[in-house]
């Protein structure tokens, strides 16, 4: 006898996600993932100035802010053959690394940790033993018995106040929580420390982009000018601020985040065998070290892995509009004028809701059930995200990535196969955060060296004026958002946006199944997951959170009476 359970809203994510799952004999036998919000950004972009598109796109997501702005300026630069100055690339890379560190830490502590950490159990911890545990793991200074004793008192008073706020109705005491009270108390401390820390690291975005969330970007470079002899530009003081912030961020990653992941993981090794799901991984790559046109120079290599075969990395070409990336709508609330899947440059999207009339209990999953379209690469369902990046980097023989992955597996005394799991996804995110900390400082030092050598350019005026543009131009802007491969496809005609499409990471991962019945990553990863109590879906959100869902961006199109409207669902 099976039971259908619904988790809606899935909380501690960005956006609106609904999971329905069929549970039989304590295990999930089938699952459906639905994005339940759309905004229609791509139609809104039509007819606008391509140089403005980054600002519209950045509002796709405020959690992984910056990534859509970056993909957008790159798409325009690709279409118009603009090559940004070296300093602009370095500043973008520094902002990228900043975003990774920020986003991954916030995800681990504020969005994911409460799946593994029992806050109520922390009340029973011995503060002295907690301190000993913390000091054994790391040299992070806030680890004294007094620190944990005060923390525990505060927590106790909080619970006794009766107003439990964000902790109300949590799954406390659930048997799937395995950490000893001391580890729980330590994690609660780091939850609060990370909350304090995260507002500091974003100041790098504020210096270069004026604000965070949603710092400013610019087609052709970056908006901030460098002038070491002027107060109103990037000067020694601003650079020192960036350098110190990067250094402190790296320390937090190394002294708190990584040790916590390594400390928690051994208690949850069963989750190294749960939640693996798909066996295919896709990465566009990012962090150029020799201009974005030189894909081989990327710190995160581009490529695809099929069937978990780490001996072969397949080339990926987002511009191949014949037989690589295509989007399908068999289970999505859209209409196509033709059969089959479409490359984003040739796509079309017409919103066509055919689900139940709200309020509803269940979606009709045999038909259409999501605002997300279903992207496929050469017909394969692909997982994108930190795990994919670490696997493609590892399999490509990238020294930095291989070293970081090997270190982590060594610390856990585990084989690479543990990576294909819920736990592996969470570990991969920590591993690449460590790399972002190292690389961020590397780019920073290169920026200093450039300025020292007299190069202060941050913007190229070439092709800024629309009068210099060709009548029609097409481009693709790729990036690796914290949650995975992200690309924007643009068509410029008569100096305006003729077409604009986004396929975002959560479109790959959270999409409904395709016409052949192949599940996408979320759905596939839930099959076989144990569910102790169907009324407390802790295990489901654990695996779903391991992908770091970001649904805000469910977008899409809208029937244009004269032309075929074509834009994609972007769910990131």
């Amino acid at each position, binding site marked *: 006898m099976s039971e259908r359970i619904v988790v809606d*809203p899935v909380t*501690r994510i960005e956006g609106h996600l609904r999971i329905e799952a069929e549970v039989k004999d304590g295990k999930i036998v089938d699952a459906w993932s639905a994005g339940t919000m759309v905004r229609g950004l791509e139609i809104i972009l039509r007819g606008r100035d391509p140089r403005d598109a980054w600002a519209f796109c950045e*509002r796709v997501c*405020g959690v992984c802010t910056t990534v859509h702005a970056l993909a957008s300026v790159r798409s325009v630069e690709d279409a118009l053959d603009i090559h940004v100055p070296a300093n602009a690339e370095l500043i973008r890379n520094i902002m990228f690394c900043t975003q990774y560190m920020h986003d991954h830490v916030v995800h681990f502590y504020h969005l994911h940790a409460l799946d593994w950490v029992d806050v109520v159990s922390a009340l029973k911890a011995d503060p002295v033993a907690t301190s000993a545990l913390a000091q054994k793991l790391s040299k992070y200074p806030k680890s004294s018995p007094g620190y944990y004793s005060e923390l525990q008192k505060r927590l106790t008073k909080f619970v006794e*106040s009766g107003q439990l706020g*964000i902790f109300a109705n949590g799954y406390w005491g659930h048997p799937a929580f395995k950490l000893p009270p001391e580890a729980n108390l330590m994690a609660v401390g780091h939850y609060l420390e990370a909350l304090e820390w995260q507002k500091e690291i974003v100041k790098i975005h504020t*210096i270069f982009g*004026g604000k965070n969330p949603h710092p400013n970007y610019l087609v052709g470079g970056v908006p901030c000018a460098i002038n070491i002899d002027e107060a109103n530009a990037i000067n020694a003081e601003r650079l020192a601020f960036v350098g110190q912030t990067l250094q402190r961020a790296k320390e937090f990653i190394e002294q708190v985040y990584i040790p916590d992941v390594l400390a928690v993981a051994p208690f949850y090794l069963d989750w190294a065998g749960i939640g693996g799901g798909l066996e295919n991984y896709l990465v566009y790559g990012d962090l150029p070290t020799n201009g974005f046109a030189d894909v081989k120079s990327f710190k995160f290599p581009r490529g695809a892995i099929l069937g978990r075969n780490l001996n072969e990395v397949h080339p990926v070409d987002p511009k191949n509009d014949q037989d690589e990336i295509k989007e399908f709508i068999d289970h999505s609330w859209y209409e196509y004028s033709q059969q089959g899947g479409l490359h984003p440059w040739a796509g079309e999207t017409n919103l066509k809701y055919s689900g139940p009339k709200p309020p509803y209990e269940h979606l009709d999953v045999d038909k259409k059930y999501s605002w997300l379209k279903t992207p496929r690469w050469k017909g394969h369902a692909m997982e994108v995200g930190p795990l994919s990046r670490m696997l493609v980097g590892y399999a490509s023989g990238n020294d930095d990535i291989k070293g970081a992955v090997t270190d982590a597996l060594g610390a856990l005394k585990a084989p690479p196969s543990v990576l294909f799991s819920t736990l592996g996804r969470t570990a991969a995110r920590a591993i690449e955060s460590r790399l972002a900390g190292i690389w961020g400082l590397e780019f920073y030092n290169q920026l200093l060296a450039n300025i020292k050598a007299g190069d202060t350019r941050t913007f190229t005026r070439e092709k*800024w004026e629309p009068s210099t543009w060709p009548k029609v131009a097409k481009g693709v802007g790729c990036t690796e958002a914290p949650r995975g491969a992200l690309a924007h496809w643009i068509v410029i005609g008569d100096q305006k946006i003729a077409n604009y499409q986004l396929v975002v990471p959560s479109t790959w991962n959270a999409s409904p199944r395709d016409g052949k019945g192949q599940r996408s990553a979320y759905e596939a990863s839930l099959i076989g997951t144990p569910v102790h109590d169907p009324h407390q879906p802790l295990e489901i959100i654990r695996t779903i959170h391991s992908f770091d869902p970001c649904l805000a961006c469910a977008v899409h199109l809208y029937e244009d009476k004269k032309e075929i409207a074509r834009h994609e669902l972007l769910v990131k």
Partner: protein
Amino acid sequence: MDIESRTKSPKEETIYEHMLSRGVNRRDFLQFCAWMGACIGLEQTGVAQMTKALETKKRIPVVWLHFQECTCCSESFIRSSHPIVADILLDKVSLDYSETLMAASGHQAEKSLQDTIKNYKGEYLLCIEGSVPTAEDGVYCCIGGKTALQIAEEVAKDAKAVVAWGNCACSGCVQAAKPNPTSAKPIHKVIAGKPIVNVQGCPPIAEVMAGVLVHLLTFDRIPQLDNLGRPKAFYSRRVHDTCYRRPNYDAGLFVESFDDENARKGYCLYKVGCRGPSTYNACGTIRWNGGVSFPIQSGHPCIGCSEANFWDNGPFYQRTPAFPGFGIEQTADKLGIAALAASAGGAAVHAVMTNIRKRHEIGEHAGENAEQAEKDNPESKS
């Protein structure tokens, strides 16, 4: 001990007690009150009142809903720079429902919402992030099987007041830009009969969000609002009037192109599209992320993100026509958001206001040839 027994005899403590329990001493607490008071423009007596209020009130239950949005408002909120502010707003208000931060999902999350509506009828504060799609009976945004429209009406009914976070909730933001495919509407168009505070911006500045909550918490009434429902404390001045680059504008010293010599000297960004002259926000005073910078300081023109319809006010990098009624005494009530559209013959107005004397001073100071600058900016002469 399980959570049930822990909460059997709930003792609702005051903000001050709670802060003490979090290791904050009285001196820090008073400092926080003074700082927050300064932020929201209080006289000394007001600070004393606020201090008293925080010492004696229990935590206000807050329900924070998300509709059509990108969560940048929540993200901004957690950036609140003063450490005690983060504590107070995450712990001192009781954040009973927040899809971004709450531990529970699905039915348990829904239960938290219903518990608050039932147990704190008429007392809870409703914060909304995002616009509400109204086309096709609202199917473009559903949560727990209900439409955003249904949820907004249901939860607002017994709320004490509503805070509309950010441009989405205040005026629809990007999804309401033309042609507004989902008929996205701001909160004040879908909820009636409740006081609504519009906290504008994409996102609003963290300390402004914190300041608005503290105001509501302390004085138990909504702050003074302008005719667009924005708190006057934060939205009564144009970015242009509080911009540290303003003297360059008055002197006719402009950036002509990004990364040109003038950009490297930090001149005015008006000619590359700055919306500071038609945007009411606190970016020039409070600045961003703990006062580190703001868009203009970092070289990009203001895009006007705290104004309604800013997405449709022309390409961002195109200079806007100037606008009538210069002078820092202007408020949004007097000038209105129609300034951009209504203005004509901007160059002439601009010229009248140009202060040649200042320009010479600044030009000389910056090693600039003022006469040459005049030739570069001919309209400032007319």
